[in-house]
């Protein structure tokens, strides 16, 4: 048993943390949030250079990592700094789908930071159910509508799931297609997201796609498992920042003549947050560490549910312990709290994973 990071991962963590601390402070990030594209091409390129994307892929795939803990290390740091650039959706999900489908040349471009992707899978009435696909594939001609597609506007290609056969909720019969950003019949209605970045409603009308795989459900389920680990790690990083900001504030801010952190009721609540932080860290370790075992999904659902609960607690308590200042958009915690809570709306929320955990542990 050993809970230390390997030397390589430790180096990656150190360099990534250093880079983000130096280059991605609140002012820089708030400027990115206000920009039209909602992301910084410069940051993207520099982080790719640093190896952030390469760490998300196995050596076989052309990267130098790709395991649960590699992904956890990267996304914890991105979460700590509240990074809004779509590494999770474009690089990790898009890239790993392409890797699973043998598109090695494109993966190479992804790792170099040169290719941007979007995964268009969820639909307006699918909520968090991965099997729920109504978008129809008539051969390679696609018709349907995709909901809240992350990074759709900036993507060079969309990866679109569509049904070749079966009913809306069947896991069989779902295929994945590659669709170029300028494909005729493709409409992308973009909008900003509360926690940063942009998404879009995507409408496909007789859009021509290139088949990636007919085993679409499995590929989506596997990459969603990876993405959920990443999302949990990102939330963990953000929660670390939230608790750090709160600790600092408690000992800086004075009321009634003393630091508010010396008021016992507040100090004890801070202690409770730190207890939950250890739980959250362990949940992420479990999700990452059991990734290549039969206990993968049980641990992922356990982690995502726990992060949903602990995340809400940390976000709300951090705001409450701060008081008014945390309500202002320009304060770092405002953005961080949004990242934490909005993580509950991706890849299944607290209740979704509660149910899944119950099912898996009954099995």
């Amino acid at each position: 048993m050993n809970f230390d990071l390997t030397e390589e991962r430790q180096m990656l963590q150190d360099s990534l943390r250093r880079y983000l601390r130096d280059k991605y402070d609140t002012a820089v990030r708030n400027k990115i949030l206000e920009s039209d594209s909602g992301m910084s091409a410069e940051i993207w390129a520099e982080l790719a250079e640093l190896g952030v994307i390469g760490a998300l892929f196995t050596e076989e795939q052309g990267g130098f990592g790709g395991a649960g803990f590699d992904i956890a290390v990267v996304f914890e740091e991105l979460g700590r700094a509240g990074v809004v650039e779509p590494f999770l959706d474009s690089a990790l999900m898009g890239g790993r789908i392409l890797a699973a489908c043998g598109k090695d040349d494109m993966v190479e471009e992804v790792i170099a930071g040169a290719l941007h992707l979007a995964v268009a899978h969820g639909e307006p009435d699918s909520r968090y159910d991965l099997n729920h696909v109504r978008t129809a594939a008539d051969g390679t001609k696609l018709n349907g509508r995709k909901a809240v597609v992350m990074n759709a506007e900036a993507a060079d290609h969309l990866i679109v799931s569509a049904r070749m056969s079966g009913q809306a909720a069947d896991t069989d019969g779902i295929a994945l297609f590659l669709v170029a950003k300028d494909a005729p019949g493709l409409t992308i209605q973009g909008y900003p997201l509360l926690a940063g970045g942009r998404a879009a409603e995507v409408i496909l009308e007789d859009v021509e796609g290139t088949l990636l795989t007919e085993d679409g459900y499995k590929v989506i389920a596997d990459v969603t498992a990876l993405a959920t680990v990443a999302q949990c790690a990102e939330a963990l990083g953000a929660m670390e920042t939230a608790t750090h900001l709160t600790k600092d504030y408690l000992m800086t801010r004075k009321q009634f003549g003393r630091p508010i952190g010396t008021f016992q009721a507040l100090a004890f609540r801070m202690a409770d947050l730190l207890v939950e932080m250890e739980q959250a860290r362990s949940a992420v370790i479990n999700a990452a560490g059991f990734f290549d075992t039969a206990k993968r999904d049980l641990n992922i659902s356990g982690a995502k549910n726990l992060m949903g609960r602990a995340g809400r607690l940390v976000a709300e308590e951090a705001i409450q312990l701060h008081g008014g200042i945390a309500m202002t958009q320009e304060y770092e915690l405002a953005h961080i709290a949004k990242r934490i809570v909005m993580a509950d709306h991706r890849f299944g929320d607290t209740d979704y994973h509660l149910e899944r955990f119950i099912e898996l542990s009954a099995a």
Partner: protein
Amino acid sequence: MDMSYSPEEQAFREEVREFLHTEVPAEMRDKIRLGKELTKDEQENYHAILNAKGWLAPNWPAEFGGAEWNAVQRHIFEEEAAMANAPRIVPFGLSMLAPVLQKFGSKEQQDYWLPRILNGDDWWCQGYSEPGAGSDLASLKTTAVLNDAGTHYVVNGQKTWTTLGQHANMIFCLVRTNKEVKQQEGISFLLIDMNTPGVEVRPIILLDGTHEVNEVWFTDVEVPVENLVGEQDKGWTYAKYLLTHERTNIAGVGFSQAGLAAVKRVAKAENTNGKPLMQNPHFAARVAQVEMDLMAMSTTNLRIISKAAAGEAPGVEASMLKIKGTVIRQEINDLARRAVGPYAMPFASEGLEGANDQIPDPHEMGPVAGDYFNNRKLSIFGGSNEIQRGIIAKVKLAPGA
């Protein structure tokens, strides 16, 4: 014990409901339902509609033109207004300043300012909070110094969290007029025209992107001595009177009922795993639990209202309602964001005109996640829930309590 409304009260409820549905424009109520902010004009229009009916000042004595409703009537109105998605009455002039003027103001001040409030001639905002003071309100630092001629106070300092200050032309402020005495004893209550040179309003954008509150800066602002309310250095007493006096609707029962109804509507329409979300036992449990809590709190609220209608001033119960009421409202905001699933993520920014057209909102719930974050303020502002717990403990753990 009798838990039913009297026939008169029921008739009043019908009248209110009818009025809200016929007199308040549907577009206005749609905006409220979708969580959109009203423009200044719309808000003033709503006040005018109520004023025409004589219902704008339910808590004012009749001699000043108020409706003189008792606590039960006020509760009925608030409940119906929330269910009808009617706007809130902007409270600063009507229920925060007016009671102070009516109790402590001079005859001249009453005659001049009160009709203007009813007619909408002034838009008032409140200048209490200061940066660095937080829950320790009495530590305020904005100073007012009487000039040598004794005609004006000269005001310097900064107020913050000033709600809707961007619309206001008048602000009532607590200012420090004496530094030599105990904090609470050197504070005065001043009415300040915001068009006076030296007053500057700077927006504060809240974490959901809304512009509700402001900073107000004062640099050598001259305020005529006629605008002092009551006696100099007695302002803290007036402000405290207000805090203990005007605590109805603190539970926000109506808002919670409306919010919960909206959540249920979505949860019946939204599907998960092939079934309506409302049939998901875990989501249903969340809804049921908050509904049971709300049913109980609603009765606590009525108990206090019924005491108030009988002339008993609510004491520490107001603090209890504040805590429970905000917890329940915040829980309902949390349910709303859960209910819409991934569609909680889009950012409907009021700041970007026209930019919201493309924002998908299939359930017409408005910016649920934004509201969730915005309403974290409920447990922070207006005496944080920690302050309320302190009050409860102080009263209830006192010897002989």
